[in-house]
């Protein structure tokens, strides 16, 4: 029976090579547009969400002595979008308690746009945010006295080497170098802080529980102010993206169903004959499924090779690897839709009476 089914599959394929080619091209086209448009829209949605975040766009602050293992454990948590390790301390400026940051690494999402001067280089350099400079009347080149909240040392003097812009989204904390921080507090007492940004889809409480499960003496602080808004914005974007993707999927499924119908219809008489001589219906589904599997796999591999250059030509910023990952995950959705279309179309033929198949084929 298996060899007979394989022969039927072979016959299905050879019956109309042009239709087969058209189907492969249709799969290639619709899969490419589904992946390209889906990826571009998803990226746009994330960009929009990030642009609506505040100057401190994090959802958790976690204090701990991080090593590579702990960092990796946190990175692997579902729902995490960004993890940055920063060093900071609390200082007194007059009667006010403010946060002083060490200059972040290059990959930080913090916006450090200067209005005047330059970023700190030496241990006594400091950059003030526009709000503090304005509130206390500090000018570029002047000195400022800060005292650590956590130690009893005398106030330490810093030289104002820059003033940050007052634009929306620019950091609102003063900045110095790591060595500058150690002037206020010994290095062994400067606990690093992991700043975590979630993807807007995960619930804060769920993520907090996951963090707590890691243990390792971490002090976890949840920042709830803007996450709900981010979630709401992302939900809206997701709805739009999913709506458009579903639309592409439906159009693709319809066109593929029509092509499948045309292909299968050309063999309706033979399906009728096979049913007449006693072949049971479920067996007749197998060659059609194998055909769909073949068409979709050829479509997948063609897309795999053609998509990156097409994306590059279109100016899509997504990296090749990320694009192929999208293709890989989207392919299963597409294959599922293809199989479902095959089933629906084939059931149309299998539920018809045999004489009707004979009549329709004439």
């Amino acid at each position, binding site marked *: 029976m298996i060899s*007979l089914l394989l022969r039927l599959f072979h016959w299905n394929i050879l*019956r109309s090579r042009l239709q087969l080619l058209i189907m492969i091209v249709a799969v290639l086209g619709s899969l490419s547009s589904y992946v390209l448009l889906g990826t571009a829209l998803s990226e746009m949605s994330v960009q929009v969400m990030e642009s609506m975040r505040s100057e401190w766009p994090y959802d958790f602050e976690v204090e701990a002595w991080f090593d590579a293992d702990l960092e990796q454990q946190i990175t692997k948590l579902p729902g995490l979008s960004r993890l940055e390790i920063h060093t900071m301390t609390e200082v007194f400026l007059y009667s006010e308690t403010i946060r002083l940051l060490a200059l972040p690494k290059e990959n930080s999402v913090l916006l450090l746009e200067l209005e005047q001067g330059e970023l700190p280089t030496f241990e006594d350099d400091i950059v003030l945010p526009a709000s503090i400079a304005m509130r206390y009347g500090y000018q570029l080149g002047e000195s400022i006295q800060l005292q650590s909240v956590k130690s009893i040392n005398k106030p330490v003097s810093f030289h104002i080497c820059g003033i940050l812009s007052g634009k929306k989204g620019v950091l609102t904390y003063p900045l110095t170098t790591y060595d500058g921080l150690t002037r206020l507090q010994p290095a062994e007492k400067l606990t690093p802080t992991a700043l975590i940004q979630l993807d807007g889809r995960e619930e804060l409480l769920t993520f907090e529980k996951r963090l707590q499960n890691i243990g390792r003496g971490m002090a976890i602080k949840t920042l709830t102010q803007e996450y709900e808004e981010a979630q709401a914005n992302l939900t809206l974007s997701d709805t739009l993206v999913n709506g458009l993707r579903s639309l592409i999927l439906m159009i693709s499924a319809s066109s593929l169903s029509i092509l499948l119908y045309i292909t299968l219809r050309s063999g309706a008489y033979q399906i009728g*004959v*096979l049913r007449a*001589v*006693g*072949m*049971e219906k479920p067996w007749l589904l197998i060659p059609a499924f194998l055909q769909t599997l073949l068409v979709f796999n050829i479509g997948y591999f063609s897309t795999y090779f053609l998509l990156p250059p097409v994306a590059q030509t279109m100016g899509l910023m997504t990296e090749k690897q990320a694009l192929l990952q999208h293709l890989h995950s989207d392919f299963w959705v597409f294959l599922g839709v293809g199989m479902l279309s095959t089933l629906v179309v084939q059931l149309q033929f299998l539920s018809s*009476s045999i*004489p009707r198949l004979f009549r329709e084929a004439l």
Partner: protein
Amino acid sequence: MNQQSAVIGKRISRIFPMGDTPVHALREVSITVEPGELVMLLGPSGSGKTTLLHTLSGLEKPDQGDVWVNDVSIYTLNDWKLSKLRSQYFGFVFQSFNLLPTLSALENVQIPLRLLGIKQPVKKATEILARVGLGERTHHKPSQLSGGEQQRVALARALVTRPKIVYADEPTGNLDSQTSLDMMLLLRELVSENQSACLMVTHNSEMTHLAHRVLHMRDGQLVESASRAGVS
């Protein structure tokens, strides 16, 4: 009911809806075909010949009436059992041969044997192909065979399981007159050898001398029956 009969149709009616007007394709037709009997069904187009053949062969359920094979009313069976019954007891020969083009003659003939799980399908298919005169062409594809040869392969496929009855729908419709005659003689010979019955729909009244019985149809009814007991 005669238990020896190959197939019995009782008061079969079939109506096709054509817009608002129903078309009576069959009007209470009763028919019995006996084993070893070759029955020809003649009549103008639209008289209901093919519908009767489809109904008797389990392909199209009648609106009224019963079809009996082996004491079983076949339309009481579910689809699965009806498929099984068709493969066990019925053979089919169609006008346009309907061989699968990617299979050789030998493989085409093996299809019903494999569906029934009969042992030694290759041996049995080879034997019957030799019997229809295609012993040397078993590995040829349909496209490499003439129309007459293709119809002989189709005949071998219909008879290889030794069915109780062979249903033939215009089996010579696509063949020239000499090939048609050869085909009919072969069909009659094989049916007789197998003790199978054969119900054949045809337009060709020149072949009626080969039948044991000729039935005429008009407007969905059997209007005339002629027996030819002494057919040679």
